[in-house]
């Protein structure tokens, strides 16, 4: 009953919602580069040992960066990618972390009150947090230290030890402090063109590899699994061919059990770099295995989130209003230079029930794996691991009907290789 109700009442809704989310994904990716970097930049400051004063807290990026992130905040993709960031302390609250031993009280000439001359749009949070670490230092009296004013912080214009007189620093013109990563060019950014209209000569034989196409095949998982219910084999692989900007990207995953291909898919994308660590993917997915072989249009983003999380977020639109999404993240923990633990998580979502493929709407399944590999060579690493698969909601109901486990824990052993 429950299943049906959910099915009938929420499915249309869900499709719409999912579609919206999926459409937002590429946007999210674009936005990601900005907010990720802006938070980065402010955090930089925090861990900067020598950095003076809470000024850095004020350096938090201009508002546009965070608002750019907004459209994505509801997207599951965003959540997955944001995790590392939010897991990290917020810039403001930790702005002073790296400055433990900095004793401002021993700087007699330091008069922070004069800093109020520094114009800046303060983040309200910035003022509160550092206080604990720095008694007596009243950052709230620095209303709005602008990134531009940071320039002044370099002290070079101040007389030695005359740090009290920081107002003089505003005299430094022209300097624009941007985020250390990402961001967008300031309006006065210079041109990289110094050609004066002069072109290249006529010589032949230039031999540079900067735009050459390369290809890679990564078989991330090629393994045998032993579950409570069944044994089998599964794989997860991707390959690409192309240059820095554009690549043909192919992904596949699936599993064999009881001698037949149970589930799997093959995806092909045009992979396009859009930010330092992010690229968009636009292509198609073909389902394999039991049940109808559905075909989907696919689009998403993939990249490297702060704290080195590899993230993939892909949305799918199929025939008859079917929608789906897949989020995947993994991480690498080095125990030695060759012994590496790789946690990996994957969530699948569907907009509609698909009884023929035994998939229900909503979150259909969540997987979490831990694989410990030993890189005999970078390109060849056997591993062992554990993989949990949890079917959820209607999908779980289907599983019950089929006398399949809702939660399966698998012991896996396999090999990771790339070429």
């Amino acid at each position, binding site marked *: 009953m429950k299943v049906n109700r959910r099915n009938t009442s929420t499915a249309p809704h869900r499709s719409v919602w999912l579609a919206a989310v999926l459409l937002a994904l590429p946007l999210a990716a674009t936005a990601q580069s900005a907010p990720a970097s802006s*938070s*980065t930049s402010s*955090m*930089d400051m925090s*861990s*900067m*040992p*020598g*950095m003076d004063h809470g000024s850095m807290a004020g350096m938090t990026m201009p508002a546009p960066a965070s608002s750019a992130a907004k459209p994505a905040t509801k997207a599951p993709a965003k959540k997955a990618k944001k995790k590392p*960031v939010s897991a*990290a302390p917020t810039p403001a609250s930790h702005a002073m972390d*790296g400055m*433990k*031993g900095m004793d401002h009280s*021993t*700087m007699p000439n330091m008069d922070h009150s004069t800093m109020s001359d520094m114009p800046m749009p303060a983040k309200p949070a910035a003022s509160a947090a550092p206080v604990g670490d720095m008694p007596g230092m009243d950052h709230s009296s620095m209303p709005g230290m602008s990134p531009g004013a*940071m*320039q002044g912080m*370099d*002290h*070079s*214009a*101040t*007389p*030695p030890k005359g*740090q009290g007189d920081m107002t003089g620093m505003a005299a430094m013109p022209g*300097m624009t402090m941007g985020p*250390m990563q990402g961001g*967008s*060019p*300031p309006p006065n*950014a*210079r041109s*990289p063109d*110094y*050609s*004066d209209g*002069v*072109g*290249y000569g006529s*010589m032949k*034989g230039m*031999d*540079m590899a*900067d*735009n050459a196409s390369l290809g890679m095949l990564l078989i991330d998982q090629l393994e045998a699994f032993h579950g409570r219910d069944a044994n089998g084999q599964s794989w997860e692989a991707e390959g690409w061919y192309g240059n*820095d*900007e554009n690549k043909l990207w192919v992904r596949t995953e699936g599993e064999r059990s009881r001698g037949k291909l149970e589930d799997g898919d093959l995806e092909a994308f045009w992979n396009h*770099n*859009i930010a*330092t*660590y*992010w690229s968009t993917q636009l292509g198609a997915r073909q389902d394999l295995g039991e049940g109808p072989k559905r075909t989907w249009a696919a689009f998403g983003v993939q990249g490297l989130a*702060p704290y080195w999380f590899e993230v993939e977020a892909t949305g799918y639109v199929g025939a008859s209003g079917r929608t789906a999404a897949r989020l995947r993240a993994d991480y690498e*923990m*080095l*125990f*030695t230079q060759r012994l590496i633990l790789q946690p990996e998580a994957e969530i699948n979502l569907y907009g509609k029930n698909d009884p023929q493929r035994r998939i229900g709407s909503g979150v259909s399944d969540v997987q979490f794996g831990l694989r410990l590999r030993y890189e005999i060579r*970078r390109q060849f690493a056997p591993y062992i691991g554990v993989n949990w698969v949890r079917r959820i909601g209607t999908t779980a109901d289907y599983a019950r009907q089929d006398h399949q486990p809702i939660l399966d824990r698998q012991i896996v052993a396999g090999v990771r290789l*790339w070429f």
Partner: protein
Amino acid sequence: MNSFSPPPADLSRRRFVQGVAIGGAVAGLGLLRPSNVWALTNPGHPTVLSGTDFALDIAETPVNYTGATRLATTVNGGIPGPILRWKEGTTVNLRVANRLRVPTSIHWHGIILPFQMDGVPGISFDGIAPGETFLYQFKVRQSGTYWYHSHSGFQEQNALYGPLVIEPDGPERYPTDRDYVVMLNDWTDEDPERIYAKLKKQSDYYNFAQPTVPDFFRDVREKGLSQALAMRKMWNEMRMNPTDLGDVSGYTYTYLMNGAAPAGNWTGIFKPGEKIRLRFINGSSSTIFDVRIPGLRMTVISADGQDVQPVPVDEFRISVAETYDVIVEPQDERAYTLFAQSIDRTGYARGTLAPRQGMQAEIPAMDPRVWLGMQDMMGAMSMGGMDHGSSHAPTPGMDHAGMDHGGMAGMAGMAATPAPVVRHARTEYGPGVDMHVDMPRTNLDDPGIGLRDNGRRVLTYADLHTIGGPIDAREPSREIELHLTGNMERFIWSFDGVKFSDAKPVHFNSGERLRIVLVNDTMMNHPIHLHGMWSELENPAGQFQVRKHTINVQPAQRITYAVSADNPGHWAYHCHLLYHMEAGMFREVVVS
């Protein structure tokens, strides 16, 4: 300071790093081509060719440095190629025959010559086709220590290089009793194109010193949790690696001194009391070396072939393509080790100075590998950049309690040189760029990562003063600002975020004196080489410092140098780390 002890060398690795004792060109393996009459060249003892007419054959030669035989691309069958001795004021004729199946070239590094003779395919000529001979002919207008190498593809990595020594027209400024070339190279058994492809697929492929979980717990134990987190925070957020000191490491490289692996032990003979000139050349493709001779003080007398006021040092860093001439005066009847450890401390080149063949001295342990410091990431924004000296350079693990704020008085020195305005190009915000430095450090007196505070007197650019001053006393009439940019994760390298393939040439007006401003928006060192014209490095106040052909720009550093555009034509301008160059950190300069 955070440091790692060097990884324990297992046996197979040891063989790799140390090389096999014989090394070099394989004798008696049979010649690949009948014309390859040079295959018996004695490893570690390059032949010397002098005069004005030279015949150079480029061919494949079997070599064995690691126990496996590989084909090197050599000049006259030697690794390195023959030492060419020219004389200032003469006209040299060099017939270079290509006996390969692919085009080749030789570029005379640091030599001021007509651009058609510069040997860069696609810029100065079409290259030398298989089976063809190209005649290089030009007047030699300088003296000192230089080198030559292929400018085609990755041939340079495959051993197509050799030393170049030019005698001055008059007497040597610093006469010596003996004179040795000490050429440093990085040899790999791998196909360099494969190395490039691997870096593109996994840029930390060759880095086996990355932060680990046990490192983290060690730091928690020693420094406390918050410190341990703090020192990793920025790196993790920026997705950058504090151990990223080099792209290609001793994992694949065997480091060579005059073509001999460490086990081969190149030896230079001396008599106690003699004055010996050592001409160090870094002919590596991707390795910056730190050079010292335990027990001997070295007096640096020349940099990039140009005489400088003598500087006594214990150690110097030699970036890729640089040359330094030093004088040593061993007094004792004993052996001395020439020790050149790679910047990432994954291996070393080694040789010996000794009164007799067969003697050797102790080989020092490699220094610890240090994490990149804040000043390598943020330039002057870190306190280290503010105190002018290199001695207080903070590192992420720095104990702040011990931080001497009184040291801020040192900033008085900076008052004279206001922080420069950094102007990023609008193209520096794309996928190919992973960081910007808004407040780069400008001081030249920082010996660089891994050499700070090591207790030895280490050469810095601030020590170098070319004798006779600049070649052109005019004040530069304009500035060209270029930023060194990259994306380490994707292994994309560029100027101003624009790779060579997407860039237009840089135009110098013929006859002008201009200033080049380089800002290193990356965490790596980049040896930047301008062909055909001198780069006259300036101190932070804009005064002439030293004349060079290759200027190493440290991470998050801003440097300036003056160029007299007195050599019309088309010239290459690039990072001399071969893999960075190939990845796009390259420009064509047109002087017209």
